[in-house]
């Protein structure tokens, strides 16, 4: 489905990705883990066309999409939820949501999908006329996630969905992602909450210094002691 080969790129003259490679099959969930600053978000930006790529390639369902622009990626059924807050501050919740489907030809379907995601995140319906900036951190995140689902994407890039979400909502989002995977959607996700994320994933990718350290079935990674120590909080208990 998605194949990243030897990616090399960065910001300005600083190279961040030093030959990242991996490939993920259709209808799977892959969790990317790695220390802060490893380049996880940078990989996402590279895939979505937001980064200077020096060399390497990205293929989506066999098509070369290296250096394609975000709009092209959306047209190919890819959506992206970046890290941090990403709403249009002065537009209402409803209009923010609507923007998620702005590129769709079939606006009637978007209308319907909006209703569906609002069923899933009832908070959004309650707040639909409020300005997005007025939402709490976690509410904004819900809005963003909902927005990325509108277009019935083939591939979702989702960068640390759990930041700011309450535990029950994290569970719910994970369930949603699993459900989507079962419907054939491919999901690439970054998560620091690695244990839970890997548990629901098919594959795990460990990234460090902009390079692929490991790429394997997620249960393999879960059981790998090195990974356990560094990224699964293995020693948290000992230190406390």
């Amino acid at each position: 489905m998605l194949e990243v080969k030897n990616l090399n790129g960065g910001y300005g003259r600083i190279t961040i990705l030093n030959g990242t490679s991996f490939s993920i099959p259709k209808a799977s969930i892959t969790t990317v883990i790695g220390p802060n600053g490893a380049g996880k978000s940078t990989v996402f930006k590279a895939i979505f066309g937001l980064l200077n790529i020096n060399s390497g390639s990205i293929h989506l369902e066999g098509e070369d999409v290296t250096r394609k622009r975000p709009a092209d990626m959306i047209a190919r059924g890819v959506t992206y939820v970046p890290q941090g807050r990403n709403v249009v501050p002065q537009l209402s919740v409803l209009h923010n949501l609507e923007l998620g489907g702005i590129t769709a030809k079939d606006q009637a379907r978007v209308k319907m999908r909006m209703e569906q995601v609002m069923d899933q995140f009832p908070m959004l319906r309650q707040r639909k006329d409020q300005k997005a900036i007025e939402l709490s951190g976690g509410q904004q995140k819900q809005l963003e996630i909902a927005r990325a689902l509108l277009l019935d994407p083939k591939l979702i890039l989702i960068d640390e969905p759990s930041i700011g979400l309450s535990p029950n909502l994290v569970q719910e989002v994970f369930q949603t992602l699993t459900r989507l995977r079962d419907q054939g959607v491919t999901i690439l996700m970054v998560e620091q909450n690695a244990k839970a994320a890997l548990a629901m994933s098919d594959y795990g990718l460990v990234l460090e210094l902009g390079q692929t350290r490991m790429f394997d079935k997620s249960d393999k990674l879960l059981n790998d002691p090195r990974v356990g120590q560094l990224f699964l909080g293995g020693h948290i208990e000992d230190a406390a």
Partner: protein
Amino acid sequence: MAEFIQIIVSGLAAGSIYALAAVGFTLLWQASQTINFAQGEFVMLPAFFVLVGMTVFGLPLWPSVALALALSLLILGVAFKRLIVEPMLPHGTLPLVIATISLGLLMKESVKEFYGATAQPFPAIFPQTVYEIAGASVSMQDIGNLVVSMLAIGSLQLFLNRTRTGRCMQASAQNPAVAEILGVNVKRMVLYTFLINAGLATVASVLISPIYLAKFSNGETLGLVAFIAAIVGGFNQIRGALVGGLLIGVIDNLSAVYISAQYRSAMPLLLLIAIILLRPQGLLGTSEGRTV
């Protein structure tokens, strides 16, 4: 009483022009968080396009206006956005402010160099009829200005809030990074903003030039007054510009007659300061919401 009505009417007529220029400020502010210091010159220039059409190409008035509109869209819209705003947008407001100050100078000097330094008569769009209403003289021109600017601003407001394109424009302005990842063609949305501004400037230019006469330096005072009107009305509300413009027009006339002609131009400024202190978001503006 007749005197008072005259003041109000003349004030509204002048104010509707300020409003048309002010709405451009508001629009560009919303689109790129920049203050276009050349806005006054944007209103000055199209009149000369019309004159060029009439004197150089010998066209009648309306075709010349159409020509001016086309040229404005091209120069004040497309070229301004492509050549100046776009490369600078990522670098914050200040360089853009400086660039627009220089652009204003460039436009002014170019008109002076290539068309002449003296004012030029400009044909009126509306018939020169004057009506007596309750003792006050009201010209067709006054009424026309008021109606045109209200229509223009009203429909712009509706367009921005009620259409998907309008909302995409807002999104591109408020958070271009997000707009981009959602697939909005940010560049095109910004272009629309500048095209609308150019169009409004042309309308304003054609409306005022019969009164102001076409002159290279017309933008100087007009720009400042429009700017004040935009702030007074509220920088984040399109219709704020209308209210601000009309208010300034009326206050200007009232103070010229009843207060002090010498300090006449001080009144809008005092109003500006008062608004900033008492209602910083402007008369119609809304506060921008939570900050943390």
